[in-house]
């Protein structure tokens, strides 16, 4: 049993209220990712769980113990830091063994655990080296190894991959996922990278300005964002947002704006009825736009002018102008368009999103 419960968690520094009323239940064996822009309170939350940051108000439970007043060493957690934080004067073996030595494990047990961890991580040949003789990826493996030899109840990861280059980051991401499947230890992982969050997390917690915005499985966040922030944060390139007016015509609801006139899909029409005659935010993901064909219904299509073409090989990103709106569309690589060309775009009616203009909540 190693669930982590956060109840009404708050952290205030002198001037800054960094974490606000965070309530989160991390289940046993679950991999939960906290994600958000810098300064959103995700690292502070993690550090409060670790015991490196005092809790201003609220309660943290690990397993069945309230840990608010326990020092880090008594919380049965292990942490992996962004800058690896390896002890520079110790060999890889000693780095990994340090936590066990502090806990007075017998030598044979230490050797066995370090050996096992080294094998899992593929760093057996490095055990006698010093951290400065290792590459970034190797250092990160040692830092992970230092955490797993302890067999803790919970792993805490504080942006562990952000110092690695892009290629290595993808590789380590896969390794971490495999490692979690194998060890089945509860893990809380902090990152600012939404791709990392989506690929690693059993559930993802999106934070902003100290508040939790939404908690959910990756695809749930993608398809049903709770508010405009989550909608814009998850997914790359980001969702296109447009301010539209809702008007009534011919028994149907229409979203209208400069250069756009789109029928509100029936699935949304009921909930949007209350906004008749008002402005709302329309959100369309770049991948939900495509070049229109003859068969596409006119009420879900609009004209746009190509501003920039970004061919990525597997797809093409089109920066477009529709009326006064600027948007990005992600289209098939076979599409041949040139800059300044006019084209007609169609959208998936069931995949559009609407947000309240003031509260920014999804409608």
């Amino acid at each position, binding site marked *: 049993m190693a669930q982590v419960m956060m109840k009404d968690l708050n952290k205030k520094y002198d001037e800054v209220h960094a974490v606000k009323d965070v309530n989160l239940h991390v289940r046993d064996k679950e991999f939960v990712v906290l994600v958000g822009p810098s300064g959103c309170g995700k690292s502070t939350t993690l550090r409060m769980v*670790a*015991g*490196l940051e005092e809790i201003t108000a609220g309660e943290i439970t690990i397993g069945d113990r309230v840990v608010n007043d326990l*020092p*880090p*060493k008594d919380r049965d*957690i*292990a*942490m992996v*830091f*962004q*800058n690896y*934080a*390896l*002890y*520079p*004067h*110790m060999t890889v073996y000693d780095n990994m063994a*340090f*936590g066990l030595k*502090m*806990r007075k494990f017998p030598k044979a047990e230490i050797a066995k655990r370090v050996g096992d961890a080294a094998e899992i991580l593929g760093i057996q040949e490095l055990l006698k080296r010093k951290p400065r003789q290792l590459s970034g990826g190797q250092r990160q493996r040692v830092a992970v190894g*230092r955490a797993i030899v*302890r067999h803790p109840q919970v792993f805490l990861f504080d942006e562990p991959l952000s110092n690695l280059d892009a290629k290595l980051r993808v590789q380590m991401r896969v390794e971490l996922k495999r490692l979690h499947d194998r060890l089945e230890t509860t893990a809380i992982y902090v990152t600012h990278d939404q791709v990392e969050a989506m690929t690693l997390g059993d559930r993802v917690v999106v934070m902003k300005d100290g508040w939790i915005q939404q908690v959910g499985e990756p695809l749930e966040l993608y398809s049903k964002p709770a508010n405009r922030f989550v909608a814009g944060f998850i997914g790359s390139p980001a969702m296109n947002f447009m301010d539209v007016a809702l008007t009534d015509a011919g028994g149907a609801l229409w979203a209208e704006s400069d250069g756009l006139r789109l029928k509100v899909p029936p699935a949304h029409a009921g909930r949007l009825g209350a906004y008749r005659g008002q402005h709302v935010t329309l959100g369309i993901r770049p991948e939900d736009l495509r070049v229109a064909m003859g068969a596409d219904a006119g009420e879900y299509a609009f004209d746009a002018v190509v501003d920039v073409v970004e061919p990525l090989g597997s797809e093409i990103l089109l920066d477009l102008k529709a009326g006064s709106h600027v948007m990005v569309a992600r289209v098939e690589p076979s599409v041949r368009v040139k800059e300044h060309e006019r084209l007609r775009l169609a959208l998936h009616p069931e995949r559009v999103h609407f947000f309240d203009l003031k509260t920014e909540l999804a409608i």
Partner: protein
Amino acid sequence: MIGSPRARRAAALLVCYGIIGAFMVFFLFPPYWMAVTSLKTNQEIESLEGIPLIIQKGATLKHYVDLFTKTDFLVYLKNSVLVTIPTVLISMVISVMAAYALSRLGFVGAGLIGTGVFLVYLVPDSLLFIPLFKVIGGLGLLNSKWSLLVVYPTAIVPFCTWLLIGYFASIPRELDEAALVDGANHFQMLVRIFLPVAVPGLIAATIFAFTVSWSGFLYPLAFIFSSSEQVLTAGTVTSLIKGDVYHWGGLMAGALLASLPPVLLYAFLMDYYISGLTAGSTKA
């Protein structure tokens, strides 16, 4: 000046060597003068003819022999060692603990105290030795070499603490946090993480402590009157200047020998010393 890159480089090097050469002459002249004088006969030292910079009438080891046989030089040497080693140890233990506390425990006013500690170091000896005379007297340590054990750390600890605060500050905080999560307490963190990582800083501080203690002159001169308790610096001078007679040969021989331990220490630890003094100035 126009020339090929190679010629310009050669010219620049020449200037560098010239400047270094000038510095070497400037700083090596005193020890050279000491060495030359210590090897001259008394007649040659006191003669007004000839060239003072070289030995013209034959070298002699008489001054060295006299130093060991006719003065208490060996007693002074022993006292200097007896004072310096515990002074360095005591000062380093206090400084290390103070620097750790000031740089890491994060209590209210730590920054202010850190600055205050350094300001204390700036008060000169010549201002302090009279009040300190009263203090040493009150402690019953007048005319005892152990008085120096009390006095020297007051000058050494502030500087070493300040030096080590800077050094400890360059150790990333994540290292402490990793150690905390790994289960180390503050003492284990200090001994097993900070000290090994801060070795260059510790060496720099140790050299400083050694130098202050070994070369201190004013305090032993003021607090110690009998030859059996005296240390090298004041002892050599008081026993070789009798009234208005300066025994130059012996003085120079004594000074030269007394300056050897710091020179050797510096020579062996110089690389560490330099990296210790510049720690924290750049983020490695």
